[in-house]
């Protein structure tokens, strides 16, 4: 348990400002394309109700 928490804290401490900038920019671009586009995505299972 202690090891797991330690590993988790180590992973979190490796997230720096650059990682957050990347995540934010990709998230913003994802929101932009999803909001701007209007494809009818039927997929493979039919229309979602």
């Amino acid at each position: 348990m202690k090891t797991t928490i330690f590993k988790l804290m180590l992973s979190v401490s490796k997230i720096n400002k650059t990682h957050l900038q990347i995540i934010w920019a990709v998230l913003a671009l994802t929101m932009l394309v999803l909001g701007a586009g209007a494809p009818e995505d039927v997929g493979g299972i039919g229309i979602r109700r």
Partner: protein
Amino acid sequence: MILLTALLGGGIVGWGVARWQGRIWLPPVLNMPSLVVLGFLPQFFVFYIPATRNLVPDRVASICLVLSQVILLVFSWQNRDLTGMPWLMAGLACNLTAILANRGFMPLPFETAARLIPHDILDTLTIGARLSKSSKDILLPEAMIWLPWLADRFTLPSFFSYRIAFSLGDMGISLGAFFILAKGRITSPVLISGDLS
């Protein structure tokens, strides 16, 4: 799916090229990023969240869609200097024009729908109505569509099992999104210790 695939493809290409050149790939710096959140939120609640989209009348949904796309167009204009953004902006303008000209939703020609949707489901859909609460499209016969070349009239080749209808605007948006991430923000080459060149 087509839009997210373009975004993912652009990211992979940008990262691959940067790595090949010994540089670090970073996504571009965006101006006024809060505008994109403000622009997307109405659509998020009206089309994406099942609990809220079922409560919203179609008229309100169409107003939210138009308002949202206008805000996203302003955001794109604020970032027009980015590689690919003019493509994305042109695509967004095409989609917004088609939506404004056709009752506030993206028109899906009946003829295109017939190629995508099984006939037993198609028979239950109403002409002039939205396909579902999660859809930005209304079903219209080709003859009733204003600016039909801007409608969701294109489909993937038949050998793809994935079924999707998209517009000229969606193609512009996908192309723009691809180039924005493929170009990214290239940093200086990474110097290895002892490399003085």
